[in-house]
């Protein structure tokens, strides 16, 4: 009986100690990890969309609440004016969520470009959504008030052959982003004006 209590006490104290230590460490590294993820996972996609931006979009980001979710918005300064916004949405793909960065030109209300950030699609098929620039380029210049769809659903985007589900996921993500952009336009403009000063 004594031995039993001894075992329980040692294990409990140890687990509590280790849980506390890890929680504290997680708390203190969380912000730094987020910055690193932005830089290395999302950074390349943001950089490709905002090619020619004169600022650092990752440093110039702001958060905005959209209903329940808080989103990161990245600001791009083009031709001396903060006129581009990039943020991430996701769509249901073949192997899970496909994360897509979508950039908007705030003057023309058009999609500037997209970039797939995270996915678990089939290598060589669905993964082309990330690796083949020709697919992403089709989104350039699409208006935000029209639904984004693949050609077989009556839209303007040519699906990747053999990866219709992935193509749809990217279209859905871009469409969601367009809807969010339109919905939050007043707040976003306000933030951009603040940024310009």
């Amino acid at each position: 009986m004594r031995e039993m209590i001894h075992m329980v006490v040692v294990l409990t104290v140890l687990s509590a100690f280790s849980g506390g230590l890890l929680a504290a460490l997680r708390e203190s590294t969380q912000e730094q990890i987020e910055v690193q993820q932005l830089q290395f996972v999302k950074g390349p996609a943001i950089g490709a969309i905002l090619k020619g931006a004169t600022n650092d979009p990752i440093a110039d980001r702001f958060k905005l609440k959209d209903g329940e979710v808080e989103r990161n918005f990245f600001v791009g300064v083009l031709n001396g004016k903060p006129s581009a916004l990039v943020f991430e949405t996701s769509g249901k793909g073949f192997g899970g969520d496909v994360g897509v960065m979508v950039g908007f030109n705030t003057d023309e209300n058009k999609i500037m470009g997209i970039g797939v950030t995270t996915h678990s699609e089939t290598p060589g098929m669905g993964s082309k959504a990330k690796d083949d620039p020709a697919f992403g380029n089709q989104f350039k210049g699409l208006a935000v008030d029209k639904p984004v769809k693949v050609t077989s659903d009556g839209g303007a985007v040519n699906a990747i052959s053999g990866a219709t589900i992935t193509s749809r996921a990217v279209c859905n993500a871009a469409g969601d982003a367009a809807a969010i952009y339109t919905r939050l336009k007043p707040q976003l403009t306000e933030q951009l004006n603040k940024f310009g000063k």
Partner: protein
Amino acid sequence: MAKTLTQEFTKGLWAEIPPFRLVLGLCPTLAVTKTVENAVGMGIAVTFVLVCSNVLISMMRRIIPSKVRIAVFIIVIATFVTVVELLMQAYTYPLFLKLGIFIPLIVVNCIPLGRAEAFSCKNGVLASFADGLGLGIGYALSLTVLAAIREVFGSGTLLGHTLFGPGFQPFTFMVLAPGAFVCLGLLLALMNLAGKK
């Protein structure tokens, strides 16, 4: 017969060098030694876990109930592995992405558990510290040597720098899994030959 601290330390560098003499921890040895950078990162991570878990377990050795000692060891090791994982995510994110699953897998690596069971739960704090440091450095060195051979022959680079002229034909076999086995086997044979006298 008590060994000196120096002996405890140096045995990890030759007489009990983990992948070659103890033939422990082979999974990451084979998997992460494609490039020297990965190998050094992995070596440092393992060394940190090994030193910390050895010291803590040796401090607790009188209160650990022998029936649940393995559970206690695993909690201690898992805690430190998670610490390493969080720190790597926060400060060396690209390396963390490359090592991927092998960082969390240090928990089930035989070396920390083996040392806990065989050494630190029977020896003093200082001796355990020396033991952990010696074996950790020995492990890191072995990985680095193996990785250097594979990287130089397999991709013609060392730490990312190109070594040979454009006429060099990379010996791709070396960076694939079978190359890892062959290379490890040859090194093991060499070490046995050298230690035979």
